[in-house]
């Protein structure tokens, strides 16, 4: 079983704070981590490999420091890491990202299963997985919370719906995006982390030319959407005190909820 896992390096948003004066994000000192959902994707891939054999390849698109995400994934036990790194990849929306990842998967070739994290904590879009599946013209199952069965031919999974879950069977090759409910990710081994830093570690870096893509197809230039403005939502505490009988305060509070469109 040849498995590809997509890995994104993200700032640890749990550590991100807002500057109370300027309202800007304080990114200084915020660590870069493997996107939490992607850890679950890696764990799922490793568990399947442990059962069926084969190999797990991790692909990560990012700047040079994203090498740390690849190294950590090797510490977790993936067989090979590929860093997609090119100045022209920068600023990609999900359209350009799924294209770039898609070309990388094609270059890897012969892949039975692609596992992606459900979504990234910086963008929260959950779009790259399905877009990658469409690019590769293979079926997708998103919101996967349990893998019941995996063979060389098919998988049976439980995926979450708004109301509960569905059990779905799907032939391979396929792409799944996984939720944190799926598994408990392991921690990287120290000896493997050390090996991942050595020259002969199984890491490759591929640029735009290696993928055979044009500058106009990737990154900001290849994107179809553009961010035109960013701003921090105001987080000031209002400090309104509602007094009176319980009936009155509840009535006042309901009014506040309605006026602020909070329910």
């Amino acid at each position: 079983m040849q498995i590809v896992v997509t890995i994104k390096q993200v700032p640890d948003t749990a550590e991100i704070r807002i500057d109370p004066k300027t309202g800007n994000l304080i990114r200084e000192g915020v660590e870069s981590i493997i996107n939490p959902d992607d850890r679950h994707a890696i764990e799922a891939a490793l568990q399947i490999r442990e059962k069926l054999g084969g190999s797990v390849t991790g692909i990560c698109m990012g700047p040079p420091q994203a090498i740390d995400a690849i190294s950590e994934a090797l510490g977790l036990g993936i067989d090979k890491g590929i860093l997609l790194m090119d100045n022209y990849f920068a600023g990609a929306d999900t359209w350009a990202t799924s294209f770039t990842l898609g070309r990388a998967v094609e270059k890897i070739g012969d892949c039975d299963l692609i596992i992606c994290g459900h979504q990234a904590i910086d963008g929260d879009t959950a779009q790259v997985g399905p877009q990658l599946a469409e690019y590769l013209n293979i079926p997708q199952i998103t919101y996967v919370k349990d893998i019941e069965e995996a063979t060389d031919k098919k998988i049976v999974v439980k995926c979450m719906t708004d109301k509960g879950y569905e059990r779905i069977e799907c032939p391979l090759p396929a792409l799944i995006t996984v939720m944190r409910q799926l598994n408990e990710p392991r921690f990287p081994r120290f000896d493997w982390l050390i090996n991942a830093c050595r020259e002969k570690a199984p890491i490759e870096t591929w640029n735009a030319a290696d993928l055979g893509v044009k500058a106009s197809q990737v990154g900001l230039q290849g994107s179809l959407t553009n961010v035109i403005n960013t701003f921090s939502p105001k987080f000031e505490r209002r400090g309104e005190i509602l007094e009176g009988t319980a009936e009155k305060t509840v009535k006042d509070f309901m009014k506040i909820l309605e006026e602020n469109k909070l329910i």
Partner: protein
Amino acid sequence: MLRSNVEELLKQCTSRFVKSQIMPQARKWDENKQYPLENMKKFAELGLLGLRIPKKYGGSGRGLLDAVIVLEQIAKADASTAVNLHVQLNASPLFVMLYSGEEVKRKLLPALVSGKALFSMAQTEPEVGSNLTELRTLARVEGSYYVVNGTKTMITMGSIAHVHLVYLRFDDDNSIGCLLLEKETKGFSVGKSENFLGLRGLGSTELVFQDCRVPKENLLLKGPGSLRKMLTLFNGTRVGLASISLGIAGAAFEEALKYSKLRTISGKPLIAFQGLQWKLADMAITLEAMKHLVYSAAKDTKLNGFPDQFTSSAARIFSSEGAIKIANTALDIFGGYGYSKEFPMERYLREAKGMTFVGGTIDVLRNAIGSYLSKKNM
């Protein structure tokens, strides 16, 4: 070729492991005076116990610097766990690597890497403390065996370790040396366990040897020059201990800084008050100086891979005393909460204090520095 910086990667990955697996339980282990054996199992599973063991015995063959990086991060969450690991990384197994025969190495080193053979380092004795020259535990030569008699006290992991590295005196040549004593040895028993103020997860106990017969291949050092070799190894272990103090101090400082921004008095955060700012500034300065001393000692390999006595002693004395100061001020910043067990501040202080005793009291090191200075040419 693009590769990660190994030190930075180890630091980050250790820190994340520690935050999720060790930090949440440290308070419980402390309250229950519980030796957290599960940590050693996890360290073995993660290949950490082999950090400094040569590759041919299944390790990673790394040096003191990597061990110091890892220990500092672990000590931020639980200093006992860090000390226990330190003994495995920087102490007893290094004696085996350097002074055992090939057969013993092949038996014990892979076993350490897999967590099947954990070590203690049995130095301190009830009557003479950690003063090596006055050791009373005695090994008598009897054919192909050494027969060991004596008592050790306050031995970290005494009740858990599978192999004890025992410092002792040999009766035939009156030399100070050491050998390996396996816990199954007849006549060996674990004595009373210590009830320390802090570092309560060390599993610290007395060890009692009554006519223990140790086969000759378990000998490590004996005869002239042995003491010097042991002291050189201690230069390394000292830096390991210093990194643990550094970790405790770092955690205490970070908590105090966070709290001083969160806690308000008359509508202003604590950190807005100059009196508090000065305290924090002094803590930051001490911490920075500790870091430099510890890391420069960890990178110093001029004595066959080990730092020299002055550098390592200075690092340990300064950082263990600095940690007490920092933990104490950090506790003060928390006010009454600092004194409460609900916050970790009081534990940091207890741990910091303990680090001045673990592996030999720091005052002995002052003696060593004093004697070094008195001999030094100006």
